[in-house]
């Protein structure tokens, strides 16, 4: 397993984040730094990663664990290279999100919360992401994919496969 260690560039980014808060309030940097760590260290937060973040911010590991377990965007288990987070709350539901979730399940041959055997895709259902007018939708990495249809889902899957190769 790779050593958990930010690059010089990322460490500078951490310093820049800490500088946003008054002296001694570096704990406020925890959520932004956890986002950074999750991006850097394989898309999820291992105990090792969380301990590392605690060290950088000079807080106790438990302070990191309690935050990491509270917020739904932090993954505490490994996920596939591409994480499909499909919204299933009311406004998406009335616009057909159930059918989209079923379609993705069939297409990828996995259930919700599962990862394809090749480690490529993970399917997760999430609660309202604030794209209700453009439903059904999902989050993929940093961006939203909206107005989903089965054809669009096919395109996204093909796009991910092409990018991975």
């Amino acid at each position, binding site marked *: 397993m790779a050593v958990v260690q930010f690059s010089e560039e990322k460490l500078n980014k951490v310093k820049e984040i800490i500088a946003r808060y008054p002296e001694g309030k570096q704990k406020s940097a925890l959520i932004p730094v956890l986002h950074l760590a999750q991006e850097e260290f394989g898309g999820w937060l291992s105990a090792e990663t969380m301990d590392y973040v605690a060290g950088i911010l000079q807080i106790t590991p438990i302070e990191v664990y309690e935050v990491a377990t509270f*917020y739904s965007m932090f993954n505490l288990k490994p996920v596939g290279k591409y994480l499909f987070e499909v919204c299933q709350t*009311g406004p998406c539901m009335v616009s057909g999100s159930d059918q989209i979730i079923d379609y993705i399940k069939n297409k990828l041959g996995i259930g919700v919360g599962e990862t394809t055997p090749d480690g490529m895709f993970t399917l997760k259902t999430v609660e309202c992401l604030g794209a209700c007018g453009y439903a059904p939708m999902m989050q993929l990495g940093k961006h939203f994919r909206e107005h989903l249809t089965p054809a669009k889902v096919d395109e996204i899957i093909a796009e991910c496969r092409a990018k991975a190769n």
Partner: protein
Amino acid sequence: MGRKLLLDKAHIEGIRYYDTYRANGGYAAAEKALKSMGAEAVVEEVKKSGLRGRGGAGFPTGLKWSFIAKPEGVPRYLVCNADESEPGTFKDRYLMEFIPHLLVEGLLISSFALGANRAYIYIRGEYAWIPDILEQAIAEAKNKGWLGKNILGTGYDLEIFVQRGAGAYICGEETALLESLEGKRGNPRIKPPFPAVKGLWGCPTVVNNVETIAAVVPIINIGGDEYIKFGIGKSTGTKLISACGNINKPGVYEIEMNISVEEFIYSDEYCGGIKGGKRLKACIPGGSSVPVLPANLLLKTAKGETRMMTYESLNDGGFATGSMLGSGGFIVMDEDQCIVRNTLTFARFYHHESCGQCSPCREGTGWMKKVLHNIEYGKGKMSDIDLLWDIQRKIEGNTICPLGDAAAWPVAAAIRHFRDEFEWHVKHPDEALTRNFGLAHYADPLPAPAPAAV
């Protein structure tokens, strides 16, 4: 065409960038506030405008500002609540994405009025691409001397920072937001003390919604007296409405608060009617937390008056026959939608989002989800409907923060107005799995109100 104050320039190409924003009158309000008005006059102007919090609660903004404590030598903070997470609501996203400088300018004026030298924009983590847009706008503004030290030579300093959350609806509650900004779990605080006295890092803090802060810009530009000419009564100014569900034109609309609900749904200027020529069954006019109304009570009040898109009219009849303007998350359901299933998704949402501090909310939301699941999937009993009613009643008012109420109200309203549909699910378990109850009588004209007893 309705007049606009926030999105009037949203269509201009390049308005996201400083030069275009400035060339179209941007930062004129900031200049006016800092150079010729002074902090107290800004607060007075906002009070005069009647501006009410646009995040959902509708509390008068000027009044909220006037509560901020000013102990000597203690910093004050302005925190912008961009944690937009109420199902049906996506208006702030639009504003931040398309006219970020309107928010930056609003933050400058508001921070100046409050005497805050640091402001934070706390944005929901899922809007992962928007911090880049905001940070670019902040950098541009700073470069042009609108942020930083000694702004416009007035001696006033301000820095604005953007902080991303990480997926928690509860962080839209202002004290949970402050906890999160301090690097903790988003557990709401017990009030008092209110943030105006003890907020971020124990210092006096005002938390305002994105749209509220943006609205300060036109208020300073045109003056509070002009602002109240938009809208009706205590619903002054314009409101962003994010419309979604089964309509022809979902999206974000800026309305003057003087149009009817019917016009908003059916006119081509706004939602453009129900998709596929279907009929309207129900609507949740202000985000998932506010009571759902059947078509007949949505378009007209119980008194037979036209229902308007204002705080007061949407609330006409209280929760017995009315709803709320809330956050402006306008969710429309057509005749094919199932109220039980929709209510189930909300119960699941609130169960997922409960922070877990208060037992009535933590346990109650889970029970509501289970009972609704049983009813929706044809395994419910008649007594389950009363059980649901009982659970929601025991959550409401018994929690530290309003998430408990927000979870209880949609369930209460669904049973209050759509009890027939719940009963139908119980009586026809096989059909409940294969078809929906449909429109039934929910769009029928209401009986004329009984004449007053003599």
